[in-house]
């Protein structure tokens, strides 16, 4: 009987949403901001990837807030799980395949991560995606080798420097152009690696910050495991 009410609630919500979406004209609104970005985005930022132009050029403060939320979440998670008794790898003795595969996977993941970050203004992808790739690359040795341990001081140094870089670029733009996080520098040749002004630098900072944060969180989660030796 108790399960009946959530079902009723879901059905009512679904009905309501269906009615509301049926009444709304789909993608027929004026969409003035969207049209403006479509016509003007690439010319005003110099980034070939329009998503990057929006994320870093038009909505830079949004990205900064996202980084802040991620930082708060990672800090809270690390705080909740930081009762480390003994930092052990997940698996007491790594299986042969895992042990050997990591040697191939680690450089591949690092190169892919940095490629995705540095080409964020040209091709799909960017700081967040590449940062998660970097985090998984850094986490791989912790997964396999029980002796491997993440150097938390270096990680937090990288994270802090990346965050400071982002904000310093924003303040520099505030000083030079009169708006916080306004795209800086010359646009350069459209479509080349060194183009789009300050956007690649911002994305590099985002990627390093996300990667360092998530790697720290994952290694905190993985610590203290493996003491029962069942896996």
């Amino acid at each position, binding site marked *: 009987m108790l399960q009946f009410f959530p079902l009723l609630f879901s059905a009512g919500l679904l009905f309501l949403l269906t009615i509301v979406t049926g009444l709304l004209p789909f993608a027929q609104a004026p969409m003035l901001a969207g049209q403006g970005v479509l016509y003007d985005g690439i010319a005003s930022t110099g980034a070939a990837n329009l998503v990057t132009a929006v994320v870093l050029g038009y909505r830079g403060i949004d990205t900064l807030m996202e980084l802040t939320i991620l930082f708060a979440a990672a800090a809270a998670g690390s705080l909740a799980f930081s009762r480390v008794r003994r930092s052990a790898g997940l698996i007491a003795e790594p299986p042969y395949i895992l042990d050997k595969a990591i040697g191939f996977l680690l450089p591949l993941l690092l190169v892919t991560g940095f490629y995705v970050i540095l080409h964020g203004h040209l091709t799909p992808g960017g700081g967040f995606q590449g940062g998660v790739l970097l985090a*998984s690359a850094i986490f791989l040795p912790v997964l396999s080798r029980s002796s491997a341990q993440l150097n938390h001081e270096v990680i937090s140094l990288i994270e802090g420097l990346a965050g400071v870089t982002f904000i310093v670029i924003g303040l520099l733009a505030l000083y030079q152009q009169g708006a916080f996080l306004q795209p800086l520098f010359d646009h350069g040749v459209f479509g080349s690696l060194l183009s789009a002004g300050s956007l690649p630098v911002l994305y590099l900072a985002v990627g390093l910050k996300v990667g360092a944060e998530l790697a720290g969180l994952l290694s905190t*989660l*993985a610590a203290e*495991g493996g003491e029962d030796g069942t896996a």
Partner: protein
Amino acid sequence: MSDLLVFVIVMMTLVAALSALILPNFLAATAATTVVSLGVAVMFVLLQAPDVAMTEAVVGVGLSALILALGLKRLGLWQLDLKADKEDAD
């Protein structure tokens, strides 16, 4: 061709989502959720949203599966059917 591809991907995603619900082994259910994310990521590529697809692939397949697996480890639910094997051997 494209319709067939979409059909196969949607069926794969649905089957993986159902198996994530009904699989008794939590580790296998975690693996099934990554298959769901993979199918959704391919759908995003077909819908011409490569940025979203890349985020879905990296976060859904990689990060959330890792966090789920580490959570299983902490809760003591990480089992690779070792117990059943031992009982069989005994």
